[in-house]
């Protein structure tokens, strides 16, 4: 049954992918392309492209896409459940213990040690997206820096200024930058 196979495959994606975001891609690729031949490599690359273009966690996007392609909407639902179920149960378990013990000094100390690192981790992920947006590359090189995408630079700077100055909610920022992008790239 294709449903069972989908469920089993995406359960494995949910269990064996650490790190979130792009870290999950090799695991999905191994299940969907190498092992089960549900997608060709070209189609898999398309899924990645769509995931970059559309909102939502990349693993859930891939699950929906593969599931729907193989077995219609029900397939999409099953693959989505498969990849979120293990992590949901784990998150509930950990959340339970976190709230039970977080006032213990040692647990507090552990999390205090972690907090500065989390800022860096967000910065790391943010830089790749920033460079991709401003210079069309994920890693910096002198050639890339010398020819920035000025429209993106302006949109970025204006958004950042609004966020810093008025502590604005990010969702209007996202909608505004989308509209600004459509106008800037199509009309200017």
């Amino acid at each position, binding site marked *: 049954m294709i449903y069972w196979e989908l469920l089993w495959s995406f359960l494995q994606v949910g269990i064996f992918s650490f790190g979130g975001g792009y870290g999950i891609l090799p695991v999905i690729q191994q299940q969907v392309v190498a092992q089960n031949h549900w997608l060709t490599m070209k189609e898999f690359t398309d899924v990645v492209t769509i995931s970059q273009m559309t909102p939502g966690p990349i693993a859930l996007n891939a699950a929906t896409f593969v599931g729907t392609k193989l077995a219609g909407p029900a397939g999409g639902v099953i693959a989505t459940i498969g990849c979120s179920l293990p*992590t949901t149960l784990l998150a509930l378990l950990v959340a339970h213990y976190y709230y039970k013990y977080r006032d213990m000094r040692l647990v507090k100390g552990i999390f205090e*040690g972690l907090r500065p690192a989390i800022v860096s981790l967000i910065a790391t992920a943010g830089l790749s997206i920033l460079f991709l947006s*401003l210079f069309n590359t994920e890693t910096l090189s002198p050639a890339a820096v010398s020819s920035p995408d000025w429209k993106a630079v302006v949109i970025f700077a204006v958004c950042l200024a609004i966020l810093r100055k008025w502590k604005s*909610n990010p969702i209007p920022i996202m909608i505004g930058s989308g509209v600004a992008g459509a106008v800037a790239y199509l009309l200017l």
Partner: protein
Amino acid sequence: MKKNFKFYQKLFLSTFSVSAFTFGGGYVIVPLMKKKFVDELNWIDENEMMDIVAISQSLPGPMAVDASVMVGYRLAGIPGAAVTLLSTILPPFVILSVVSLFYQAFKTNPVVNAALKGMQAGISAVIADVVVSGGLKICKSKNLISIVTMAASFYAVYFLNINVIWVILACGIFGGIMTALHDRRGGRDA
């Protein structure tokens, strides 16, 4: 906070909108969640949000799902977690179902592409804002250990490509040891 229908509705819509605007997956959801639940609704304090991020990052599977489930559980137990889980997986599910039907048209549509390029710059600004706030806060604390931890973990992940799991483990163990040492010296001031 009363756990009535209005609360669950707000919880659902908040997580739904966060998920619907998370482009690129992974950490992108963090700044959006922080802005929503910490700054806007004041439902969760900032340190707690950072802990939730650290835990989600250490668990397998999509990080956005872990973080949402933990936020939902914190606010309203199992029913809360069920609500946030559903509202996190719904937007990508609906959008991808539609997009997969019109994939070619979607990929080549100039308006879609132009808008997405604009949104990429927008999301970069949202992330930069959260990083600047967090970084400034740590620098202002004048806590040398925190500042060094921040710089070292950035160097390790960005330049040395060390897996984030190891960085998180190392920082957690380091934090635990520092606390234990501090307590043994009798400096129980916290």
